[in-house]
């Protein structure tokens, strides 16, 4: 083993974060693009330029989401088990929405019919806005604690309902999620399309980022008054995974404790705000490439803000806080974490290399002329 158990547990907390960030920056961007599709593309040709900016990449990007699911299963099996069965209908909603996207991308431009293409454009919109919203809502619920319990044989039972998930705080979190992805996508489209499409995308992107800044600040204030979770006592962090052996209390505003305990973590919310605001400025100055870097930093900031606030909690239980799942005690065995760490060490650099190669090869402004000249070879 390269690292001891405690270190590996922490590395996997970071790696799950990396996967979520990879998902937001790539697949999240595709979702933002699809949400903007009907707004920034008024004609079929315009919409095709929008779709073809991500045409060659959406499938590879989506694998960040799939792999995040697989890694959750492998590294935090109890979280995978509790979250997906607990959020059963939310998860199904995401799945059914995601069914629409592969078909929409691949089938849309195969036929000339305007009705056919229009329907698939709606499918892309629904298939992208629903998951973007639900992921935010899920985060919002996790921050408030999830009503689940666990027996001595470690069987999870969920006591909440689907509609219970749609509470005001969670809906704000959902909006934050949609807006940040739309803002990010706006920078991408400003960079990769031209003429009116690019300027409309930039405009909508800046709107989205501005509202995001307000809502993210609002959500932050809300969290300050939300019941946060704190560990009173727990087994040694080197010991085997057992979420049943700790004592947890809740108190108002406890989610902000980590920021005073570890002041360096303040960098994450700062990154989220600054990333969004600077991106708006860069977009205005017509520097969308830097704008895209800026929104990427914003996404890192947002995800790490939530992660750092909750650390070491991953999925607190509002029903029975003592059995809340943390990154210390809801994890896989030392050997599995080690094997998976080595796999990630080998494959993540390889993935980043060939993904970059593909982006470089496909890099250009997608223009209406290009689509017209290659109408049967484009999406």
């Amino acid at each position, binding site marked *: 083993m390269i690292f001891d158990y405690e270190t590996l547990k922490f590395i996997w907390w970071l790696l799950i974060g990396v996967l979520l960030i990879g998902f937001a920056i790539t697949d999240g961007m595709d979702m933002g693009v699809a949400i903007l599709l009907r707004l920034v593309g008024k004609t079929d040709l315009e919409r095709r330029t929008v779709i073809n900016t991500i045409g*060659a*990449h959406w*499938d*590879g990007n989506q*694998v960040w989401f*799939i*792999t995040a*699911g*697989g*890694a*959750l*299963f*492998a*590294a935090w*099996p109890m979280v*995978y*088990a509790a*979250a*997906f*069965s607990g959020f*059963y*209908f939310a*998860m*199904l909603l995401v*799945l*059914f929405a995601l*069914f*629409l996207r*592969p*078909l929409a991308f*691949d*089938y849309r431009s*195969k036929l000339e019919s305007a009705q056919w293409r229009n329907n698939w454009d709606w499918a892309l919109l629904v298939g992208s806005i629903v998951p973007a919203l639900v992921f935010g809502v899920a985060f919002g619920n996790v921050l408030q604690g999830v009503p689940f319990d666990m027996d*001595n*044989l*470690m*069987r*999870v039972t*969920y006591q909440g309902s689907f509609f219970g998930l749609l509470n005001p705080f969670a809906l704000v979190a959902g909006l934050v999620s949609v807006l940040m992805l739309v803002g990010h996508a706006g920078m991408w489209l400003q960079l990769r399309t031209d003429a009116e499409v690019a300027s409309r995308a930039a405009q909508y992107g800046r709107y989205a980022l501005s509202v995001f800044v307000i809502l993210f600040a609002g959500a932050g204030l809300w969290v300050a008054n939300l019941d946060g979770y704190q560990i009173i006592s727990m087994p040694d962090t080197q010991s085997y*995974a*057992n979420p049943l052996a700790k004592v947890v209390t809740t108190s108002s505003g406890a989610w902000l404790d980590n920021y005073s305990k570890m002041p360096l973590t303040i960098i994450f919310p700062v990154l989220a705000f600054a990333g969004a605001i600077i991106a708006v400025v860069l977009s205005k100055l017509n520097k969308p490439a830097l704008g895209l870097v800026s929104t990427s930093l914003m996404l890192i900031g947002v995800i790490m803000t939530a992660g750092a606030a909750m650390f070491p909690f991953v999925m607190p239980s509002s029903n029975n806080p003592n059995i809340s799942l943390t990154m210390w005690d809801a994890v*896989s*065995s030392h*050997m*599995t974490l080690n*094997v*998976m760490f080595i*796999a990630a060490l080998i494959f*993540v650099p390889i*993935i980043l290399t*060939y*993904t970059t190669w*593909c982006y470089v*090869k*496909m890099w250009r402004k997608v223009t209406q002329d290009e689509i017209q000249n*290659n109408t*049967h*070879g*484009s*999406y």
Partner: protein
Amino acid sequence: MIDETFVDLSRLQFAITALFHFLFVPLTLGMTWILVIMESVYVMTGREIYRDMTKFWGKLFGINFAVGVATGLTMEFEFGTNWSYYSHYVGDVFGAPLAIEGLMAFFLESTFVGMFFLGWQRLSKRQHLGATFLMAIGTNLSALWILIANGWMQNPVGAEFNYQTMRMEMTSFAELVFNPVAQVKFIHTVSAGYVAASMFVLGISSWYILKGRDLAFAKRSFSVASGFGLASILCVILLGDESGYEVGEVQKVKLATIEAEWHTEEAPAAFTAVGIPDSDEQVTHAAVKIPYALGIIATRSLDEEVTGISDLEKKHEVRIRNGMIAYEYLEKLRNGDDTAENIAKFDTLKDDLGYGLLLKRYTPNVVDATEEQIQKAVKDSFPRVGPMFWSFRIMVGCGVIMLFVFALSFYYNAHRVIEQKRWLLKAALWSIPLPWIAIEFGWIVAEYGRQPWAISEVLPTFLATSSLTVNDLLLSITGFVIFYIILAVIEGWLMLKFVKLGPSSLHTGKYHFELEKADQQLNQGAQS
């Protein structure tokens, strides 16, 4: 108490989603290689017809691939949504190959599939061929890792139960990867995928030849498909899955039920070609037996026995009784009575814990099971013989027919007389559904045959579920069925449309409908 309806619905949903997903996977597995072959010929010879073949079959591949991606999403998350106790109980082992599948295979496949479709103008010939090749490698690697995961469900090696965490934990990653059952399954399954793709291309090319359309295009496609298909079907049959049935207890159960081998026969056992299995009497009526065949198929030898159901039952009964004691000690350990003595005792018996858990169906405490309940659990430790017996024979029957179709296609194609053999072209066309029938029944043999276990000898299926309700499942199954029907209808319709259009759909101006149109225009021009 276990709610049987709920368990059955959980299984039904998994079966629907897995079987539906697996309608689209085999074509992807094989088609990627067919595309690699076609494009390689294009790059080597520079002949454009091979580029057109790559693009056209690639179009059909893409229509299929989209639904494969969509329905694959379900599979990645369904263990968590519907089998949450399973996810907890074996996630430490089972999750690893799934995550590695994502890292090693899905990224590769999905990244380069985009380059395959949209990179024609932006990549050099060789680069594009490279992208196609990496897409094929990625696709096939994903089959490897998911079958390593599935192989572990059939024969759970390299892992041990840990009472402290109340789950199975990995003890050897190498054993997990080199699980003989997984290796055999991988070869069998990917070859079956190659057969499906070959039959698809062979059948559709035959139809073009029968119609006298785009002959040069169709005959070249036919050649590729018949050669690749023959090699693949030989691989499926000769390296059949059954060679893995001697490894692991549950695999033996499968073999005995497939064969309706009620009692151990002296080696080498005869193979029952057809018959009517009768579970109550434990006999097969009207059996037609082929001497020696089962012994050779199953054990690859003439002197090893194939264990019969009645002998397996006796073994299972012993293990269920051991499992009851194991469960008793597990409870002690879980309740903090973890003396060295109790741990030692539990360790000697824990391999039979799963058999003890079979009793949970009848009594939640396990240890107080009555003699009658134990006997019921023994009976439960087998899948029903009828479905196993018939599913296997349907699968093999389809395989044998396909062997003939591919062999004759290859032979007559090599002699360049395929156009005259219209009966064979028709047979090839009508054989298109056969690989899918064989594959779906093969899934039933492998996965229904694993019952009553989710993880063989470790975790009974009825314990592996999530804590949902019957109504939850009715709702989700309805959702899946509606969505999947919509997906299937759109996919099927579009596929048919493009199959009918043929290579004319490439808009190169060189193929049937475009030439026809050009002719008409020419004629009209001459008339006016």
